[in-house]
């Protein structure tokens, strides 16, 4: 028993193993309870839980108040599983039909979104003297909105039926498509390939996705039969097994487990996709929580100070660019000025995927400041973005003034 447990925990001394297992469990218990309490707090005051988890991580570990040492190795694996599940479900979130429709009708808004929100991050990276790869990663961090936070809040604030909501969701779909290209490209660049090699690798990855799409559409009944089961246990085992296998293989060929899981998510469809969407979210939330904590633990809060200014600057600039993107997309869809304003404000929150992108760079050692900067940036925009979303109707819109609606109001009085 002990001889089996020792190598798993990476403990060289068999003597210490028993005590250490206890320590790991205690630490893990403390972390999970902290997450549970923070999650309740977040729900009570109506903010997303991701920034709180991140904050908890910052307060633990190096330079934090609560030291975490014994469980770090387990936490690392837990965090890795969290990333894999986050990206699997991101890939699964939209059906191939959604992606096709999104590509056809929203590519202009999607392109504007990418340029307006990716370029500021990329530029700041270059100004800070980072490498091109690290700057591209920062561009990804500032580009991608948090579909997790946004979808949750749209639901909480009863805006799912609103007419501007399809505009918001279709922009998120476009970001999903961009990720399918961006993630493999970054994964390749991070292992030190040139931009051209990266482009080729990304093209190959996209080709594979396309083939997998075709296969999954043609043979979806076979895949269904293989993975599908009425027993939740068997279904979970099958899906998790397949996911970890694909993620591990992707990691082995240097494409990063996260990317592998994402591509697998994109290719799963039909009944299996529905089943997985019903089954995996709680598991993703637990391991995803561990991932945010782990990301925070890896950052010394003292490192936040030097990057605070760029983070605040980027947050302001990219909040404005996201709002403008939303307004533009909504106005093209024929949404009224109030709805345009809500669309813009709803796109501001950044969250899990910004952290995932930064995590790729941190794991590869691309840039030491990337982690702290991304953490500060996400903290600011996850909080600010959800507040902007909540009070969207009460925040005076600059768009209203520009419209001659006011005159209608004045008429009865005069």
């Amino acid at each position, binding site marked *: 028993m002990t001889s089996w447990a020792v190598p798993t925990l990476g403990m060289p001394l068999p003597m210490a193993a028993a005590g250490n297992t206890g320590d790991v469990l205690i630490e893990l218990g403390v972390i999970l309870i902290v997450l549970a309490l923070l999650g309740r707090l977040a729900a009570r005051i109506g903010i997303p839980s991701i920034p709180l988890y991140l904050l908890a991580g910052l307060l633990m570990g190096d330079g934090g108040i609560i030291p975490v040492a014994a469980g770090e190795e387990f936490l690392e694996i837990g965090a890795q599983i969290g990333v894999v599940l986050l990206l699997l479900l991101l890939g699964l979130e939209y059906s191939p039909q959604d992606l096709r429709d999104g590509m056809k009708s929203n590519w202009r808004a999607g392109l504007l979104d990418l340029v307006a929100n990716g370029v500021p991050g990329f530029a700041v990276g270059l100004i800070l003297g980072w490498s091109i790869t690290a700057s591209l990663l920062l561009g990804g961090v500032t580009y991608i909105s948090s579909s997790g936070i946004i979808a949750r809040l749209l639901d909480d604030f009863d805006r799912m039926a609103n007419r501007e909501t399809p505009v918001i969701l279709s922009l998120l779909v476009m970001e999903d498509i961009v990720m399918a290209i961006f993630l493999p490209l970054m994964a390749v660049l991070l292992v030190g390939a040139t931009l051209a090699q990266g482009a080729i690798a990304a093209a190959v990855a996209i080709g594979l996705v396309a083939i997998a799409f075709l296969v999954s559409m043609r043979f979806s009944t076979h895949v269904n039969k293989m993975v599908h089961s009425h027993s939740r246990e068997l279904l979970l085992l099958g899906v998790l097994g397949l996911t970890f296998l694909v993620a591990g293989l992707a990691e082995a060929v240097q494409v990063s487990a996260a990317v592998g899981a994402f591509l697998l998510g994109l290719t799963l469809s039909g009944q299996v996709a529905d089943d997985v969407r019903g089954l995996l979210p709680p598991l993703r939330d637990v391991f995803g929580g561990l991932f945010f904590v782990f990301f925070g633990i890896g950052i010394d809060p003292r490192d936040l100070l030097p990057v605070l200014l760029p983070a605040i600057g980027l947050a302001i600039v990219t909040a404005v660019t996201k709002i403008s993107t939303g307004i533009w997309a909504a106005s093209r869809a024929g949404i009224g000025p109030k*709805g345009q304003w809500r669309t813009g404000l709803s796109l501001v929150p950044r969250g899990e995927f910004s952290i995932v992108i930064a995590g790729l760079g941190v794991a590869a050692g691309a840039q030491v400041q990337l982690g702290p900067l991304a953490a500060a940036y996400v903290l600011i925009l996850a909080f600010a973005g959800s507040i902007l979303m909540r009070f969207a109707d009460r925040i005076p819109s600059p768009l209203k003034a520009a419209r001659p609606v006011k005159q209608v109001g004045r008429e009865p009085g005069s």
Partner: protein
Amino acid sequence: MELFETPLPGVGVRYEFTAEGGDHVGVVVRRDGKRDIALYDREDPDSCRGTIELSEGDASKVAELLGGTNITARLEELKHNVEGLAIEWVTMPDGGGLVGKTIGDGRIRTETSASVVAVIRGEAAIPGPEPTFSLAPGDTVLVMGSATAVRQATQILTG
């Protein structure tokens, strides 16, 4: 009444219509079967004055209250799940076809391979009617089979 359908990627489908009284109503059918009913704001037609969130069970209860029969919805679901299987509700005409004759007289199974699964007469459903069952005007006959078979069977039934 005109019903507009908008896909909500990652969520489901939104239907909207303007009621005769002028109220603008939206219904979101979520992927997991939940429904939201929303009443749009007249001042800001893009937003809702309020929404009602209904579970799948709530929704079918409300549908019953509103006068719909949820058997149709369930069959719709079945139709979606089984590819290559067509289901048709055939209302018997006042005369002609198999009106006044028995199901066996039509030799539907032999000629078309489609099956008569049930007959609905007034409020009562008769599942699995015998070949000796005699059809009356206004009966609704539920036919199942391949698309072609169902089409042919409809022809035999209605004449």
